[in-house]
């Protein structure tokens, strides 16, 4: 769907993006992650053609992107706002018309959305009379009203209560299922895990991590397993002597929950073979790192090129 090649952008002396190449696959939710000031917003502004790159190309569906393509994009910026004195309906209509929608069509679709979200009563209210969350809802509708093929959402959940955040979450998933490609930039790692199919992590102007969520979590897996067992602690220690390391053990409902990290080159089968004679095993589960940990580890890495697939620490 969208392909970036060697994007470079500098502001004076400051290098905002340094050779970023990545791909956003059609019909999926792509999470654009990164610490503050990493260059995410700059990258988004280049994709939305608000600003141009100093070097590199943006391709859409295999051809160079043009200004006309912006009409098929929806962009919800992190810094967003509406004209305070304008009426909600008029404002949404104005934004839709700027996107190139005919007025009648925009009106029809807006009515539809307002009914679906049960906010018909807001049409003639001024924006300044709305609460922050209400204004955000209007903003979201304005972003997706023209049914964009490519949707960019920058921190879409900020300012929403959990109920409305859920509403937005479901809309994003519904849009994805209808074929919209979504780029989601957020610091909320929980929603990354819930929503994103792929991620790209930008740090200090470089893309440091890119791939599907599943693949990356596997890549960051530390070969650690959570084993629920009953039996002698000493026997457990002995049994693990060559195959793994006991990280910690907790008592829970009369059972021991032991976190075991396998020694390099070992697999779960071998460890279990050792353990079976010594203790009684009730359950085994692999510990997959949360996006939160992956984020912190990837960013704290000094050299992005050195991020290994089989990191042990």
């Amino acid at each position: 769907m969208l392909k970036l090649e060697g994007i470079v952008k500098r502001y004076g002396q400051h290098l905002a993006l340094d050779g970023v190449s990545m791909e956003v696959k059609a019909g999926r939710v792509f999470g654009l992650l990164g610490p503050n000031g990493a260059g995410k917003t700059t990258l988004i502004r280049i994709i939305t053609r608000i600003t141009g790159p100093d070097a590199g190309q943006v391709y859409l569906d295999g051809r160079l992107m043009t200004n006309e393509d912006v009409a098929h994009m929806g962009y919800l910026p992190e810094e967003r706002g509406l004209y305070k004195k304008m009426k909600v309906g008029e404002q949404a209509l104005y934004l839709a018309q700027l996107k190139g929608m005919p007025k009648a069509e925009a009106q029809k679709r807006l009515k539809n959305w307002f009914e679906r979200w049960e906010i018909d009563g807001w049409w003639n209210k001024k924006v300044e009379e709305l609460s922050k969350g209400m204004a955000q809802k209007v903003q979201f509708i304005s972003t997706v009203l023209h049914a964009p093929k490519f949707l960019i959402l920058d921190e879409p959940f900020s300012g929403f209560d959990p109920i409305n955040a859920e509403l937005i979450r479901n809309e994003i998933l519904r849009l994805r299922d209808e074929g919209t490609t979504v780029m989601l930039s957020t610091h909320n790692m929980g929603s990354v895990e819930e929503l994103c199919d792929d991620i790209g992590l930008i740090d200090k102007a470089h893309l440091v991590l890119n791939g599907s969520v599943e693949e990356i979590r596997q890549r960051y897996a530390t070969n650690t397993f959570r084993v629920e067992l009953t039996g002698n602690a000493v026997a457990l220690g002995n049994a693990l002597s060559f195959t793994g390391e006991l990280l910690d053990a907790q008592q829970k409902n009369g059972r021991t929950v032991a976190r075991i990290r396998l020694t390099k080159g070992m697999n779960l089968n071998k460890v279990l073979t050792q353990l079976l004679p010594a203790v009684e095993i009730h359950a085994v589960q692999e510990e997959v790192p949360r996006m939160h940990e992956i984020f912190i580890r990837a960013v704290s890495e000094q050299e992005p090129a050195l991020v290994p697939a089989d990191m042990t620490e």
Partner: protein
Amino acid sequence: MNKIALIIKREFLSRVRKPSFLIMTLLGPLLIAGGIMLIVYLGMQGSSDQHVLVVDPNGVIASKLNNADKISFFVDDAAWDDSTFKASPYTVMVRFTEEITDPTALIYYKKLPNLGAQRTIENELEKAVELLKLRRAGIDEESYRRVRKNLISNWLDIEKTDQESLEQERAGIGFFFGYFMFIFIFLYGMQVMRGVMEEKQNRVVEVLISSVRPFQLMMGKIIGIAMVGFTQFVLWIVATTLLIGIGSAVLLKDRYDPSTLANTPMTAQVQKQLGEQATAVPDVNDVKLLKAMAMLDIPVILGLFLFFFIGGYLLYSSLLAAIGSAVDSEADTQQFMMPVTLPMILALAVAQMAVYNPESPAVLWCSFIPFTSPIVMMVRVTMGNAMLWEVLLSMGLLITAFMGTTWLAGRIYRTGILMYGKKASWKELGKWLFYKG
């Protein structure tokens, strides 16, 4: 293009629909017309009755002093001291200094009469003293009146001897155009700046420029606000004219309606004065102004006015838009405002100079420099002393300049509106010019 139209429409409608626009539209003419009517009304309202005591022991007053409306004279050849005057019912006391040939009048008052009354009193005294001097010099009064007539002088351009030049009057008309431009550019240019700042502070701007080009947004705003200004001014002119028409009809009806005049008992003096006024030729200056207007080629002047006006507005409002985009709050605008407002004030000063000294080099140069040319060239054109090539050069320079400033402003604008928290300096603005779009 379609998008610019949408932006213009929004900028226009959102301002015209504001209650403040309606209030200003109604209040503006009321204030202007009210102000004018108030001046007229106050001018007509004579002050309280003046009883003027003329102390004249030396016989300076040779003829009878004519009583005017609400002013009555009493001549006494006895000396009065101050305290007696204070205790008397007289409101004004006149004493003459001792010089026999050229006496000075010392006029004491309890409460200062209004200007009109002061003039009337002075005139009456002067006439009386003049008569005294004539008699002393042995000049016949009749022949003196014949001789003492103002010299009428006309300045004629040797190239166009068939008509008076009337340069001053024409310059006055040009200056009026210039002043109008100044007010409009200042008023609505500032609105452009505020509008840009509002969009930036609202954070609505990033949503907008993901749909339209920043340049379109800027131009849409500039044009939309100009249309608000035109609408407002047209409404003001229409409403003010109407109000003054109605107001003067109501206020002046009683005064100058001949039927009421005939019924009012009046002194012969007042009737005579009124008669004189009715038959008298209008003030010389009024005639000259009308003549000057008639001399101007109205369509050409209006066309040029429109051109210089729009050019000047585009030039300044684009710069103001750039300033609005570069700052985070109104307080930060100060350092950038000075260089923009200064040329405008300079233009007005030079235009004023052009009225009295049209050939000065400052006037010449300022009529070419685009930042001052709209106002100054307008004055030169109405005065009729600008050559065709000068006007064309000035127009060409203005076009080049406003294309330059809108381009420049566009580059600052598209970077500025997305910059938050960064304190803009001149150096910073310079850097923004070279960021790749």
